[in-house]
Each structure stands twice: as C-alpha cells, then as structure tokens.
C-alpha cells in the first residue's frame, strides 16, 4: 500500500543552522512527490514538487528512488520557516488522490 512516513513530529533548529525534514515513502509505481507547508493561521499550500526541481524559499528536495526518500533541506534556517510541513505522494498518470504524511512541525529557535 502507498504510504508516506515522516519520522519526526517536531524538529527544533537554531536560526542559521541547516534544516533537514525527513520523508520516506513506499510505493511500487511511478510517484510524484510534494512538500506542502502550513504557516500559523494560514491554509495548506504547496511548497515544492520533485518534478520542478526548483528551490523555493531556499528549500530543496531530491527524490531518491533507491532509498525511497524525499527529504526537504535548507542550508540556513530562518525564523519565518517555522511551520508544519507535510510530505505527500501522488500516483502519476493514474489517479489524482494525494497521500499525506502525518507532518513535521519545524520550530526555529532564535
């Protein structure tokens, strides 16, 4: 069965330190991976998707099919990065449902 695992419920990082939010998935087909973010009192929004291969707000994520991982990284954390982050998966060209992980709360310490 398709599954997205985010092993950390909470990650606290000092401002200026590197950030890595872990995401592992189990899926046998051809997945499309996403990171969604929810800032305080705001709606869930797309941060980035693996097929775009772009950096958004300094964040990058590389799909590693061998390790079935899609970790989110940023070299220098900023206070405004504090938010809830969800890793998500979609089956390409088959259906449109998105499977979300349970999320990781990122807390940037001053």
């Amino acid at each position, binding site marked *: 069965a398709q599954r997205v695992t985010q092993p950390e419920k909470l990650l606290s990082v000092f401002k200026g330190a590197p950030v890595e939010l872990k995401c592992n998935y189990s899926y046998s087909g051809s997945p499309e991976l996403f990171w969604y973010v929810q800032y305080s009192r705001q*709606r869930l929004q797309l941060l980035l998707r693996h097929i775009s291969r772009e950096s958004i707000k300094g964040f990058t994520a590389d799909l590693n099919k061998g390790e079935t991982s899609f970790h989110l990284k940023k070299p220098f954390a900023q206070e405004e990065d504090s938010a809830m982050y969800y890793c*998500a998966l*979609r089956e390409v060209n088959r259906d*449109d*449902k998105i499977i979300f992980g*349970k999320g990781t709360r990122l807390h940037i310490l001053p």
Partner: protein
Amino acid sequence: DAGVTQSPTHLIKTRGQQVTLRCSPKSGHDTVSWYQQALGQGPQFIFQYYEEEERQRGNFPDRFSGHQFPNYSSELNVNALLLGDSALYLCASSLSQGAYEQYFGPGTRLTVT
C-alpha cells in the same frame, strides 16, 4: 480571486445528525477534492469530483457522500455522524489539464458531540 473558499468555518453537531459542508473552487479550476484532517494527522483523501461525478474515492464509508454542481462548486455530506468524524475538512481545487497542483481552502472545523 479569493482562492478556494469553504463554509461554514466551524460547525458543532450531535451524534447521529447529518452535516453538509460547502466548497467553491479557485477561479478556473474544474476539479474538487475533499480531505479529512484529524488532530495531529495529515490530511486523508475522501474523494474527488470532476464533471459532476465522483472520480476517485479514498477509504471512507458510504456515510460520506458528495456532489459537484455545474459551476464546479462542491458539497460534502456526512450522515449518521460519529464522534470520530470530528476533524478539519479541507477542500482542494485543481485543473484537470496541465500541471497538477491542488489549492487548499481554509477548512471547516466539525465537532461532533
């Protein structure tokens, strides 16, 4: 464009009652998906509507049903409410063609007592 809008914002119901939640998609979008987000969990896919028909369904009982109107807006209906149905219900809209991205609404917080 206000983006995806949902109503009501909050709702309190009693066990056994029925509830209807509403969603208006982002301008230009023709597909609406519904998710349930329980406290401390990620959103769980309920179903998706396109061209006024249910196109995909997640692992939810038949008590959960929906509808899409010709203007692409959508309703989520839940019958015979259970305490476990208490959650944030999210609506997301997308375009069936082109780059796939779902835009989420603010959600409706349903409390079942």
